[in-house]
Structures are given as C-alpha cells and as structure tokens.
C-alpha cells in the first residue's frame, strides 16, 4: 500500500475529523483494529469459510476467492459489521453444513467428500430459495438496498463472497477489466472483443 493509499484509507476511517489536514496529521498514530476479526472463527470454522469461499468462486483461469483475500473480508464482516442476529444465522449455517455431512457420511463438513460438501451447500441454497419465494418484495425502488437479518445463511455467505471477490484488488484486476480512469465514454463496444465485464 503506497503512501497516498494509506492516507486515503486512514482519512476515511477517521471520517468526521475536523479537516482533511487534521486527519492526515492524526492518522499516523491510528492502528487498524484486526483483533476482532482474527478471533471470530475458530480454526475449523476458518478452514470451512475458506473452503466455502473457494467453492463459490474457485480458481479457474483466473484466481479464486482465496487468492483474493475473501475469507479475511468475511471474517471482518462477521466480526465487526454483522449484528447479533446476523452472526447467529451465519454460525447456524456453518453448523448446518456439519449436520448434513454427519448424516450423509458420518463426517463433519471439512472431512467429508467433495460431492457431499457440494450437496450440503446446495441444500443451504435451497433453504434460501424457499425463503425468497415466501418473502417477495415489490413496489420499492429496485436499486434500494435491502437489509434482512433473517436472510438465510447461503444468501449471506454468497453476498460476502461475491462482494469480497469482485471488490478485491485481485478480483477487480484479474477477473474484471479494471479501468479506474477510462478517459472517454463509448456507448457501443463489441463485448466479444473484451470478453470480461468492466469493473464499476
């Protein structure tokens, strides 16, 4: 991270400080708090989260979720951003994966076969699909964000993996076409010449 990037990050973390100049002066003394996210998962839960991230967005011809640092992002959100209800849903989901694999192969999720793990995650996806069909939203602005504490585990996990991957430096630069300063607008580009999405 170069100096300008560090300045920007800290200035934003300090947020409402009186002026940018003050925030730049103060920022050198502020450590980023990694304490909570380092301990939110026990080692097995952490390995499970890594596995799940890579199951959802694997390394292919481009890096996957692990290389993009997605598990760290998930840990940070679960530890520092989720409220109690959301955290509870997340941990219950991890447990449900174990329950499935114990019933199918008498093994916890981490130790089960790949096929079993896929089936366990697919079951969680079905839980989400059932939930969505019972909770259709309508009428409001289509781009308005919707916070739902009770959104099932797979919905939470998938959102974190997708956001964590595509907003990561690796994801943005290697899976997307990253152009932070496009220079011009072209309203008619042949996608077949590009082959990838442009990052936002």
């Amino acid at each position: 991270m170069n100096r300008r990037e560090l300045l920007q990050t800290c200035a934003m973390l300090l947020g409402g400080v009186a002026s940018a100049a003050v925030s730049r002066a103060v920022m050198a003394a502020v450590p980023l708090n990694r304490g909570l996210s380092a301990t939110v998962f026990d080692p097995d839960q952490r390995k499970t989260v890594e596995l799940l991230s890579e199951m959802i967005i694997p390394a292919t011809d481009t890096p996957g979720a692990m290389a993009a640092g997605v598990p760290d992002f998930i840990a940070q959100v679960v530890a520092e951003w989720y409220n109690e209800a959301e955290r509870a849903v997340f941990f219950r989901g991890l447990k449900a994966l174990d329950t499935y694999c114990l019933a199918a192969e008498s093994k916890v999720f981490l130790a089960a076969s790949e096929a079993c793990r896929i089936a366990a995650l697919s079951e969680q996806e079905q839980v989400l699909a059932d939930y969505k069909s019972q909770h259709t939203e309508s009428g409001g602005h289509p781009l308005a964000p919707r916070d739902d504490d009770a959104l099932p585990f797979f919905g939470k996990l998938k959102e974190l993996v997708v956001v964590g991957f595509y907003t990561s430096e690796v994801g943005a630069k290697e899976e997307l076409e990253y152009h932070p300063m496009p220079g011009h607008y072209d309203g008619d580009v042949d996608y077949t010449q590009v082959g990838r999405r442009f990052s936002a």
Partner: protein
Amino acid sequence: MQTQQFDAIVIGSGVTGGWAAKELTEKGLKVLMLDRGRMVEHITDYTGEHTPPWQVPFRGKPLRDLYKDEYPVQSQQYAFDETTRHYYNNDKLNPYVDQPKDFLWFRADVVGGKSLLWGRQVYRWSDLDFEANKNDGHGIDWPIRYKDIAPWYSYVEKFIGVSGRAENLPQLPDSEFLPPMEMNVVEKHVKAKIEEHYDDRMMTIGRVAVLTKPHNGRAACHYCGPCHRGCSAGAYFSTQSSTLPAARQTGNLTLKADCVVEGIDYDPATKRASGVRVIDANTMERTLYTGKLVFVCASTVGSTQILLNSRSEQFPNGLGNTSGVLGHYLMDHTYATGVVGVYPGLYADRVDFGNRPNGIYIPRFRNVRGNDADADFVRGYNYQGGAMRPGVTGQAMSTPGFGKEFKESLRTPGPWLMFLGGFGECLPYHDNRMELVDSKRDRFGIPQVKFHFSWHDNERKIIDDIQKQGQAMLTAAGAINVKSFQGNMPGGAAIHEMGTARMGDDPNESVLNRWNQMHGVPNVFVTDGACMTSASCVNPSLTFMALTARAVDYAVNQLQDGAI
C-alpha cells in the same frame, strides 16, 4: 465583539454563494464570503477521490450504527458513503426538530456546499414555468419572465460549460452547449422507438455541467465516476473548480470557513441591513461583520433560517417578513417514481465503456400546450434515466448455483435494462413550510428548524401519470417485464427544495422583488432556492446561478447609482 467592514458579505459558498462572490469581486467590490462548514480545497481535500473498492471500509457496506446515530438524515442520500461522508452535515451535532420525519434536509457542512455533491443536471426554465402560477392560480405570479433571465442563462453557461444537444423545444430552451455526451446503443434504440410511436415527445441526452472539452482552464471529463467524491480535473462545476478560483484571482475575496451566521442586523435609521452576526463553529467566538450589501446564499432552508432568526422591532417575524410568507410555500420535486424494463437478447454483444456522469432526458410533454384533455392534473414532469447492464453483485445474487460455471457465467453481463425516473412539479402550498422552534436551540443557541410538508392531490396524480406513461413508453419501445416503482419520497428527497422567501411584485405577499432584492431592505438579496416562486419540474440549479449573476449586476449598479 470585533467589527470589520466589507463592500459585500456573501452568506454561503455553494452554487449561488460562489457565484455571488465571483460576480461581486470581479466588479471590484471587497467581498467577505462566509460558510459554516470547514474548508475544502480543490484537489488536496478530495480525500475520497479515486479510492479503489478494496480500500473502502467494508467494501462499501454502510456503517449502520454510526450512520443511524450521527447521520440519520444524510445517510439516506444517494451520494453518501465512506468516500464522501466528510462533506456532509453531522445530523447529531446539527439536528433539526423531529428529523428525519416529514422532510429530508440534505446538506453539506463544507465550503462549496452541495456544489461538490450535486447531480450536475442543468436546464433552462421557460415561460411555461414562469407563467404557470398566473395561468392556473396556484401561488402568485413570478415577477419575471424568460426574456429577463435568458441573457443571464447564456452568461452563466458560457462560464461553467454545459454539455448537451440543441433540440429547439419551446418548453426546454437550449443552452450555450459544449458537445453532447453520447447515448449508448440501447438508449438510442429506445429513443428511436419512442419517437416513432409518439408524436408529442422526444428523448435527448442529459444536459450537464460537466465538460466534454477543456474550458476556462478546466479539463474535460475522464469518465471515472463518481463525481461527488471530488474531481481533481475540475471537469464538473463546483465552487472549488470554477467560481472560487475566479473570485480569488481578483484579489478582492476574503473567504472564512467555520463561520455560522446567527442573524442579520437591521438598522432602522438607514433602513438597511447593517451587519452579519457570526459564531465561530469551533471556538464559539462571536464576530459582527459589516458590509454595504448582503447576499444570502446559504441554501433554501439555511437562508430562511437566518432570515427568520433575524428579528428586530421592525421585523418581529424575521427580516423582510412584513408579508408573513417567509418560511411558507416550501416545495420540492416528486421523486423515486419510475419504470424499468428489460431487453433480453437486444444488443447482447454490446456493452458500454466508461462511467458517464449523465443520463438521458425526456422533456416534459404533459400539459405543454394548455391542459391535456386526458390529464387530471396541472403542470407536469420530466424523465431522467438510462440503459445499463446489471452490475456483477446484482447479477450474481440472482444467478443460482456456485463454482466454476457460476463464476464464468458472470463474465457475460445480464440483459440491458432501461430505467426512467420521473421528476414532478410540486405546487406552492401555504401549509408546506419551515419554522424555527425557539425552545429547541442548536449548539450555537440558534433555534432549530421544524418542517411541515406533505404532498397533495396534484402531486399524487402526477406520480400516477409518471408510472402510467412510463410503462406505456417502455412497452411501446419493446421492453418486457416493465415494472413501475415508487421509492421512499418524503419532501426533500429530490434535494430540489425551493421556496420559503419567494419573489413577487407585491410586498404584501412576497419577500423579494423582481431583482431578488428584499422588499423594504434594499441592500439584502436572496438568490438561492429560497427565492423561488414556483418549482417547475425542471432542475433548478442553473436558474439559481442565472438569478444570482443578474441580481449582483443590479445590486452593484444600484450601489454605484447611490440608490442602495
């Protein structure tokens, strides 16, 4: 208490304050421009600009607890996030009564004000707007017409640079244009289909205060987005990029940030405003500044708050409030109403490149030649919108599955969507108003603002028509799954709040005359949104700029003639 002396004092440094300071200093006056917010210098203080997504805290997920506690109003604004929060008002520090109920008062708390954050859409009003009150009897007649303001539209446009396409429409006069931005393939398609199907409406590219060519020392747009973080190229109009450098160049400007204006003093012997009372936002030190002219440009609500708080024996209900209308006839635009349709298969192999800081615009076509036979409302609305393919997160969340195929499927963007969002005119209603609550003081001892605002029958009918016409248009243009929507829309949501110190020829029913000059206090001018006698459906900021330049020209002539 210390005293100083200036030729002119400008309260506020946003869109109109910056313009007043530029015009006054360029005419040779020594000017003090005050802002309650902290300093933001062009380029060096745009701390959020170019922040890549991986450096935004929680990758952009909102800091819910902080926002709820300290920014319950501002966090509802579309441009508010961790890369812009430093520009916004802290609602906990500086609240209004019952916030955010009844009205969303979006505001910045920095030099430049909303000129840093605004949507940059700029359009001229026409006599369809200036004659509306007279024609249907809602509100009072504007004391000006298009011919009075047309030369000033040209004047401000030539300075700020406006990109757009000339369309020769009577209800939306053309500006002095820099080259227009491009529509994308689907927007062109929808435009062609709509214009083929209807003979009374058309679609053009948005008219924006964003440069498509270098202009007056500022660079053309780089299509980075989003503008509201700040633009070091100076490509969009803001105080920082445009009017402040011009004012500073004259050597006549004193700019003081962190200056909260408590009130304007009135001297009954001279029948003039005699000074502006300021409280330092950090030290609480009080200062009185005196000037020959006072331009009140603190934003619609900010300006009227100052005027209401400027009470004296001659003006017990606020400076210039002999009529009793100060604070009343608050208006906004209807907002968050629209339609969206899908085009599966259309231009599937085409995408767009670059973040265009602009959309398309469908000028008002309702009630433009008298009242339409099938319209159960007066006045009208326009659409702003555009076509886009879904973002990766949205697409991912609605694509089932996971793994290699899932990841690869996200490489192909989903189908094109076309959005149209309507902005509708709100009529002037006496009951829509702001007041000061003396028993609820802010941390400076200034009475807090309380809003009373509701939409009425005409606005509800306009919203219905926006959805109905929008659905019909997108369907005629071949979109499928066309859905209409209405998002959260309290007053203030469109951030086009106007009125409360309206212009009019009759001092018994207005606060300002045809020159934005306060009735009975000839050295006070109010040129921001507070002055507006009606709201139109057309974006107002360009009109604010033109009124300001025109009012300064008048004020300085009056000063030089010895009339003020």
